[in-house]
């Protein structure tokens, strides 16, 4: 709640384990606010919510240990090297030194970043930073990863690669909660919800939504809902 403006009004939904859940909505629809409530940065005024099986009111600390978060800004430290960033974020989740070492090796190998392991993150291209940020968010093997508009400002090829990474971790059992503005990305999700003015107006698989609204693309579903 911001003053007497209700950004998120009594939304109800559940996300299954290992699912890729697309959280859609126009700017100002309340996506980010809802997400911040789930990850414990904002406190909902009332309601009931479980994240990874933990209560948002009573067990915020347990939630924090079991979720990963990647913000819109690919928040890595530009003045730290790739390895140092990984070590830092692993460290604040309490991973042991040895574990961080093996994880770093795996991660560099997977992303093909071995050559830039000791390069400052600030000098990497945006697409690399974004993939690195995603891997860093997964470092402590969270049950759920929250991705806040993860592909903004990135070229289509990198976006494609990024979604491949998302699929891969979903297949390994990680639940993905992703907000996006790109409607083609929405089609990649297992299920999507569309928020309008603080309420969830639609929630289903992309196929079912298109059928329900009798249109060919999610884009059209979105436009129909957003225009009211």
């Amino acid at each position: 709640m911001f003053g007497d403006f209700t950004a998120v009004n009594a939304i109800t939904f559940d996300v299954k384990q290992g699912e890729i859940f697309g959280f859609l909505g126009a700017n100002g629809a309340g996506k980010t606010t809802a997400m911040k409530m789930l990850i414990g940065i904002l406190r909902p005024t009332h309601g009931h919510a479980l994240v990874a099986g933990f209560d948002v009111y009573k067990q915020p600390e347990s939630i924090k240990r079991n979720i990963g978060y990647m913000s819109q800004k690919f928040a890595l430290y530009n003045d730290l090297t790739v390895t140092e960033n990984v070590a830092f974020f692993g460290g604040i989740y309490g991973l042991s030194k040895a574990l961080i070492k093996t994880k770093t090796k795996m991660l560099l190998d997977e992303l093909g970043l071995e050559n830039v392991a000791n390069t400052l993150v600030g000098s990497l291209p945006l697409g690399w930073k974004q993939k690195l940020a995603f891997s860093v968010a997964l470092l402590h093997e969270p049950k759920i990863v929250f991705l806040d508009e993860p592909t903004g400002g990135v070229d289509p090829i990198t976006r494609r690669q990024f979604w491949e990474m998302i699929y891969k971790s979903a297949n390994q059992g990680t639940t993905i909660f992703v907000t996006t503005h790109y409607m083609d990305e929405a089609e990649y999700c297992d299920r999507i919800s569309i928020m309008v003015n603080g309420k969830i107006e639609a929630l289903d698989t992309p196929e079912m939504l298109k059928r329900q609204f009798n249109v060919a693309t999610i884009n059209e579903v979105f436009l129909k809902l957003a225009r009211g």
Partner: protein
Amino acid sequence: MNPFLGFIKKEIYHILRDRRSLLILLGMPIVQILLFGFAITNEIKNVEVAILDYSKDATTLEIINKISASPYFSINQLMMHEADIESVFQKGKVKAVISFEKDFGKNLIKDRHATVQIITDATDPNTANTISNYINSMVQSYLNEHNKTLTPTYQIIPQTRMVYNPELKSVYMFVPGVMTVILMLISAMMTSISITKEKELGTMEVLLVSPLKPLQVIAGKVVPYIFLSVFNAVIIIILGIFVFKMPIQGSLLLLGLESVLFIITSLTLGILISTISASQQTAMMASLMGLMLPTILLSGFIFPISSMPVILQVISNIIPAKWFIIIIKGILLKGVGISFIWKETLILIGMTLFFIAISVKKYKIRLE
């Protein structure tokens, strides 16, 4: 790895890799103390004076010798005509002209009084005042020496003694002052910038979503700056002792503890600033305008508080630096112990607690 230690390590990387800021952080105290110590000085030394001597007798010669022998003055030239005074001042080198009347020595014996005129260049009023006082007292002392042989008339001779800084060295005033300003600047400005930087980058959100407690995040940001500030305080004191021969009268331990207290006060101010500013620029402006100027102008560092208008004297009470300067001058110059400065110490502790209370309140509002 201990999450908190990892966090501090990260902060140290930030500080060490920002070479320009680091250079400013470590270089500024040295440059400032040397600048204030050497360049900006209220003392006069080797001031060039011109002599206009219409008498040219033994008495004037003796007085002139006395003046030129002192470290304060050197004779630039001997003038011949009163008309030259104007042009001599305009050239700018000569700051004072001393003019003896005709038959100075003869008049002194015959009439029991003679006139010497001191003309000073008052474009810089403070210096002019000091110069004229110095010359005055030299003439006076000449007179006193010679009066011994004469029959004494009524005379009151005030004996002044300047305690704690007998040579009136202004560097004694600047060392505590610069130390205060530097500690305030580094502690408050740098922490507020470094916290708002995380907000701007979006990393603050990521940190708050992590298992790190908000208090750990703030403490992790602050700890490296405590060390940096202590390091600077030590450098300033060392420069004061070895370069400017400043005596340390009081206990170094007490000085250290009080400095750490003031550093913490400044850090909490920095945290407070960071909770109310969204960007690094706002934080910097708030620190500069809100802290630096009052610290320099209203703390008694340069301008004595007792000669300010009442309203400013009242305002000066809420400037933490004012209290620290009283404390540090007390310890350094007067050698006082805690029994003389407990009140100021308590005020600083009170301010610190107050800043922490507001910060915590503001911080919670932002989080919920």
